[in-house]
C-alpha cells in the first residue's frame, strides 16, 4: 500500500516533468525559415507591433518574425539574460539600462547596418554619450523619441490671450497672471515619485551642462555647483501648483489637467494618451520649459524612447537587418508616431502630432538635450530624493546628499572611468 502510493506519486511527477521537458523543446516552427524574435519594452504599443509582425510575415517567406511586448519587460529581459536565453533583437529605451547592457557586452556592434545613415545624428550622439566609457562601435538604432516640457490648455490660453513664455522671467509673469485670474497655473502628480523628474529634467537641460554627470565622474565638478540653480527654480515652480502636490498621483494630475483644473502641466509628450483618454476633446499643445533667464539658453528635453539593438548572440545578422529595414520604413514609423504621439529618430518628412506644435522649431533645428535622469542609476532613486527635497525645501541638504550618494552608487562606474582615463590619457 505504502510503496505503491509513493511510487505513483513519484512516477506522476517524473512523467509530468519529462513531458514538459519534451514539449518545451518541441515547439520550434518549421525549419526552413529563419526565426527572429524581438522583445520590446513598451506594452502600450503592443497593437502596433502585432500589426508589424503580421505584415512582415505576410511579405517574407524566408524569415519568421515574432514580436512580444510583455509587461515589465526589463525584469523579463534580465531573467532571460541570466538563463542565457537571448532574443535576437530587443527594443528598449535610451537610458541607463542600455548603458549597462553595452558595458556587459550583451549587444552586437551594428556599425555596418545601412539604415544608420538615415537616423538623425543627434540621437546617435545620445546613444554614444550613454556609454559608460567610450566604446568602439554602434549598439542601437534609435526609433522614436519623446520630449518633455510644459503641456498647456490651448483653448484656455487663447481665451485669456496668454502668450507662450520664452524665458524664466516670462514664465513667472505668466504664472502670476494666471493665478490672478483665479486659475491654477500648474498641476503636479508628485505622489508618483517619478513625475518629480519631469520638471527637473526639462529645467536641468536649460541650466546645467549636458554632461554634468560625466564631469562629476571625472571629478571635475560637483552637483552642488551644477544643480543649484535648477533646485532653486524648482521651488519657485512648486508655488504655482496645487496646495498639496504630494497627495496626487500621475493619474490624478492627468485627469485634473484634462478637466481644465489647471492651465499647464509640466510633463512629457508621453502623457498625451492618458490625458486624452479622459477628455478626447481637449485642445492641448506644448512648449519648451523656459528655465533659462535668456531665451537662447533653452533647449528641448528630448530622449530616445525606443531603440532597437541586435544581441551579440544573434546568429542571423542578415535576417535581423532585414527586420530592422522593415521596422524603419517611413510608413511604419508614421503609424507608430500617430498611435503613441512620438518623435521619429529617422530623417524625413513625418507628420508630427499636434501636441508637439510648440516644440517643432527645436526639433527641426536639432536643439535638443537628453534626459539627465537617463544617466542616474535607478537604485539611487533620484526621483525620491527630489520628492524629499520638494517636501523639505532645503537646497543645501539636498545637493550635499546628491553628491555623496552619487559617489556611493556610482563607485564602480567611476572606477571604470578612471581606469579608462588612465589607459587612454585624458582624451576629452
Amino acid at each position, binding site marked *: 500500500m*505504502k510503496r505503491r502510493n*509513493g511510487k505513483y506519486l*513519484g512516477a506522476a511527477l517524473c512523467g509530468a516533468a519529462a513531458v514538459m521537458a519534451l514539449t518545451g523543446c518541441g515547439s520550434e516552427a518549421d525549419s526552413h525559415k529563419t526565426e527572429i524574435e524581438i522583445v520590446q519594452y513598451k506594452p502600450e504599443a503592443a497593437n502596433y507591433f502585432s500589426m508589424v509582425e503580421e505584415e512582415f510575415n505576410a511579405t517574407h517567406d524566408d524569415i519568421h518574425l515574432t514580436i512580444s511586448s510583455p509587461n515589465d519587460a*526589463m*525584469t523579463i529581459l*534580465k531573467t532571460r*539574460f*541570466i538563463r542565457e536565453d537571448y532574443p535576437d533583437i530587443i527594443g528598449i529605451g535610451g537610458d*541607463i539600462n542600455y548603458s*549597462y*547592457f553595452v*558595458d*556587459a*557586452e*550583451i549587444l552586437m556592434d551594428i556599425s555596418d547596418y545601412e539604415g544608420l545613415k538615415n537616423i538623425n545624428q543627434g540621437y546617435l550622439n545620445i546613444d554614444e554619450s550613454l556609454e559608460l566609457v567610450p566604446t568602439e562601435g554602434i549598439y542601437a538604432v534609435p526609433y522614436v523619441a519623446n520630449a518633455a516640457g510644459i503641456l498647456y490648455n490651448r483653448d484656455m490660453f487663447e481665451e485669456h490671450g496668454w502668450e507662450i513664455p520664452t524665458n524664466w522671467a516670462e514664465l513667472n509673469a505668466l504664472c502670476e497672471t494666471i493665478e490672478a485670474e483665479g486659475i491654477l497655473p500648474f498641476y503636479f502628480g*508628485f*505622489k*508618483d*515619485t517619478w513625475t518629480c523628474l519631469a520638471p527637473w529634467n526639462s529645467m536641468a537641460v536649460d541650466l546645467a551642462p549636458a554632461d554634468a554627470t560625466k564631469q562629476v565622474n571625472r571629478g571635475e565638478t560637483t552637483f552642488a555647483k551644477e544643480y543649484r540653480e535648477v533646485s532653486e527654480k524648482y521651488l519657485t515652480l512648486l508655488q504655482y501648483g496645487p*496646495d*498639496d*502636490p*504630494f*497627495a*496626487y*498621483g500621475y493619474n*490624478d494630475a492627468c485627469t485634473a489637467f484634462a478637466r481644465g483644473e489647471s492651465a499647464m502641466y509640466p510633463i512629457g509628450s508621453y502623457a498625451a494618451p492618458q490625458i486624452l483618454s479622459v477628455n478626447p476633446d481637449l485642445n492641448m499643445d506644448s512648449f519648451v520649459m523656459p528655465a533659462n533667464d535668456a531665451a537662447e539658453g533653452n533647449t528641448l528635453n528630448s530622449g530616445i524612447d525606443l531603440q532597437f539593438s541586435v544581441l551579440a548572440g544573434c546568429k542571423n545578422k542578415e535576417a535581423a537587418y532585414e527586420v530592422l529595414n522593415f521596422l524603419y520604413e517611413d510608413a511604419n514609423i508614421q503609424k507608430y508616431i500617430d498611435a503613441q504621439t512620438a518623435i521619429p529618430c529617422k530623417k524625413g518628412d513625418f507628420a508630427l502630432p499636434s501636441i508637439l506644435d510648440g516644440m517643432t522649431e527645436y526639433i527641426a533645428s536639432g536643439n535638443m538635450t537628453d534626459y539627465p535622469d537617463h544617466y542616474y*542609476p*535607478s*537604485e539611487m*532613486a533620484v526621483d*525620491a*530624493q527630489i*520628492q*524629499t527635497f520638494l*517636501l*523639505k525645501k532645503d537646497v543645501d541638504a539636498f545637493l550635499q546628499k546628491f553628491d555623496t550618494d552619487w559617489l*556611493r552608487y556610482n563607485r*564602480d562606474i567611476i572606477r571604470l572611468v578612471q581606469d579608462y582615463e588612465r589607459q587612454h590619457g585624458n582624451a576629452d
Partner: protein
Amino acid sequence: MKNERKRTFLLITIPILALFICFNTIPLIRGVIYSFTNFKGFGSYDWVGLRNYADLFTDARVGRSYWFTFKLAVVTTVVVNVLSLLLALALNSKIRAKSFFRGAYFLPNILGSLVVAYIFNYFFTYILPAVADMIGIDALRTSILSDPGSAWIGVMIVCAWQAIAMNTIIYISGLQTVPEDVYEAGGLDGATGWKQFKHLTFPLIIPFFSINMVLCIKNFLMVFDQIMALTKGGPAQSTESISYLIYNNGMSGGQFGFQSANAVVFFIVIVIVSVAQMKFSGKKEEQL
C-alpha cells in the same frame, strides 16, 4: 513496529526535504554568494569581499527601511489580531446570514492590489480630507499619504484591511475546535462575556493565536505588494520596506549584489525574531 514507523517518517521526510533544498536552499546559497560581488543582475561582476555588508551598516536608507518595516509590522500585527479576533467571535456567534457575512469579509483578501491601491488612494486623497473638512478635523484635511510623517498609517490601514480576512478564518477554525461543553461548564460557573473569553475561549485557541502571529510576522515584515501599489516607497522614501528595497534596487535597479547582502541580513534578523517569538508562545502553550 517501531522501525516501520521510523522508516515511514524518513521516507516521507527525505524526498520532500530534498525538493525543498533543491529549490529553496540552493538558490539561497547562490544568492548569498552574489552578496559578495557587485553583480548587477546580468553581465560580468567582480568580487568585492565584505564591502556590501560594510555598506549596509552605514546606509541610512537601509536603516530607515528597517525602522519603517518593524514599526509597521508591530502596529499592524496588534491591530489585525484584535480586530480579527473580534470578527471571528462575531462570525462564530449566533447570527443571521452567516454565510453572507463570511463571504463578504473575505473579499478584501482577493481584490487585486491595483484595485485596492486605486480605491484607497482615492479614499485618502479625496474622500477622507473632504469628510474631515465637513466635520472639522484639521489634521486630516490633507491626504495622510502625502505627509512623510503619517504615510505609514495609510499603509498600515490597507495592510490590516487586507490581512484581517485570513486571520479571521484561522481564528474561526480555532473557535470551531472549542467544544460546546466547555462553554456549558463555564456557563454554570457564571463565566460570561470577557471573563468567559479570557479564561475559557482564549486559552483553547492559543495555537491558532501563534499561527496568526507567525502569519502576521511573515506578511508584515515582508510587506511588498501594498507598498508597491500604494506609495512606491514615498513620500520622501518614508515608506520603503526592506522587501521593497531589495526588490526595487536589486531587481529593477543594478544593485543585485548589495541587495542580496541586505536580504541575507534581513533573513537572519527575521529568523532570530521568529525563533524568539515561537519560543515565547511555545512557553505560553505549555503553561496552559
